[in-house]
């Protein structure tokens, strides 16, 4: 599954990141790299964009980029 498939409030570990998309690299620079735990903080009306939290930070991204992050779900959402 990818980051785009997480429901609001779910946490997951980032597994493998496809670095083809330049937008994905910007997200990696913000700290979204392999092996960190992220939480799906929020999903905007219409299902896009997404807000992902990690290490006390929140970052918004679009589903298009989120699909490039393979994840393993850790806990279910609220």
């Amino acid at each position, binding site marked *: 599954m990818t980051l785009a498939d997480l429901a609001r409030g779910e946490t997951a570990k980032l597994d493998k990141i496809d670095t083809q998309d330049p937008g994905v690299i*910007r997200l*990696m620079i913000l700290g979204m790299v392999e092996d960190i735990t992220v939480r799906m903080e929020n999903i905007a009306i219409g299902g896009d964009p997404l807000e992902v939290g990690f*290490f*006390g930070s*929140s970052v918004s991204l679009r589903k298009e980029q989120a699909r490039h992050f393979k994840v393993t779900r850790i806990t279910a959402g609220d």
Partner: protein
Amino acid sequence: MIESTEVKIPVSGIGIRHKARASIALIGNPNAGKSTLFNRLTGLRQTTGNFPGVTVEKHTGTVQLAHSAINLIDLPGIYSLDGTSTDERIAVDVTLGRVPGTDRPSGLLVVIDATHIYQGLYLLEQLLELQLPTMVALTMIDVATANGTSIDIDALQDSLGGVPVYAVSSITGHGLDVLKERLEQVTTIPCPSIPASWPELSETAQQISQQLGQDWQRIDVIQALLQTHPGFAGKLGDLLGQDTVAKLRLKLFGDAPPAAAEARQRYQWVKKVIAQVQEQAPLYSKIGARLAQWTNRPWPATLLFFAVLLLVFQAVFTWATPMMDAIDGLSSGLGRWIITQLGDNALSSFLADGVIAGVGSVLIFLPQILILFLFIIILEDTGYLARTSFLMDRVMRTVGLSGQSVIPMLSSFACAVPSIMATRVIPDRRDRIATMLAAPFMTCSARLPIYALLIAAFVPDQSVGWMNLQGLVLFSLYLLGIVGGLGTALLLKSSALKGPKPHFMLALPEFRTPNLQTVAIKLFDRARIFLKRAGTVIFVVAILVWTLAYFPRADISETLPSVNTSESSSQLDINNARAAAQMEQSWLGRIGRTIEPVFKPLGWDWRVSSAVIAGFPAREVVVAVMGTIYAVGSDADDQSLSEKLRSAKWPDGRIIFTLPMVLGLLVFYAWCLQCAATLATIRRETNTWRWPIFAWLYMTGIGYTGALVIYQVGSLLT
């Protein structure tokens, strides 16, 4: 260490001013509390200028220390050294000493937000490659403590290879004394060694830099290898051979893009350090968490957004009115006083109708602009603006833009000038230009007087269902502006400015209480920039319009009889008739008459054409010009001018202001770019005349076409 013969005196009490000896760059992530720390350290001893060639403001200030002073350069917030937006690039270039006219800083004060050390440490590790004396201010330590996060400062310093770290809170002032004391030695602290996050890269770069000699510092080689500086990358390939460089890259980065490899490598180290130095790493900061959680839910967030919007609009349009009326009254009062003092001649008219009216027409916008800025700065500093971008991204995507274009577009409901400046946060140039060209469509406050006049005069004051027809028309005009702007963005993004879909990547800060001093300084700063940028243009334009309307002088006795043929001229105030006669044969009137054929298909006579022409440099003058042309005086209330407009006729007796003509005129004003200040600002921000010229031709074109279609079709129907 050299012991100086010191005499301990409370410097603050005596107030000795030291001359700054060293230049230190203040650098850190966005929202890390950098500006607040800057203001805390420098107080009001700061200046704002511009970096050459770009529009990013350069904030510098002097920090008075006990025995010396240092010069502090506040740089825009960045996340890494491979900046993509204008703000980011300038921060990188200044730090690396690549900006002409700005010396390479002799040290760095890196600001890290204690609640976001993850991203802060990443940037710090990149900055350590600069080999400059570096000091860290760990800000918001009070917020971190309140969140239950504790940071072992000693352990952190050890992980950083001895780079000194000072915990401070800019809000409470905690730790600032210690930081100031240590800043005294900032240039003498040893340069940091090889940063621990990616020693392979640093060591490789170090060796190459030694091999290549003086011209190549370690950071230059690193930027060449990482391909973050294309010039260096090319040169390094020439010097070492492309094969060697390719092999080095393969060894260091594998087959990943260099930036991705760097993020993986350094963040892995950052994660380890955080595990060692930080107790409890909450997934999401707890401050304001409940409020944030509720307001973040899509529907409450949308409701809140409209409530905030309503409040801001209400404030901009009602709170400012008394101040605007006062400025208006003051400038026209002063003008009348000058005319009574000096008599009616060219000098008094120049002073009263040119200079004073010109200054007044600049100042009249200030109340609205200040209120708008105040709200935007507060919303910005609480972290709400970023939330708004998140909320509205979906809407903006339909026209090919991202949520980052929302704030500029909203600001332009007050004035397009600050809104065009606010587009700097948009990283992609194409998206930025599309936003700049869409923003002037939004109904700015300068359009309101003409809307108010025409609606009051020609739209019946009756209700349509539960709404008032006049209000409905005004609302439609706002809508027309929005449709025009968004349509333009869509058109441009699918043609001339076509590019990859904009990414929407934004760090969303949590809610914070804004710092009053910072808000005040920012407000003052933006007002000053507005006055300088827009004010000078509006003023010059006012003088120009006065000149065109004043010269050449009319021979009153000759022209007077022709002024008003249809109405009983005996009722007219003789002065107003004179002014109207003057206007008719002035340069402006002549231009109006010459150009009448162009506007005739829209149903405009020479008087409307003259007023429209006068409004091209600055649309706000149009009501005053109409007042003069229709011989009710430039200060006339809307009532008498409305009556005049209603009874205005063509020479053959047909009424000029028919409903189709008025609606067309309104559409023309909604879409036409009649503002030299906006054009000048687009020129400044894009650094080319191409876009302002395009914007003017395009907006004037569709304004004209809109008015033409409405008038012609409407005239057929009625």
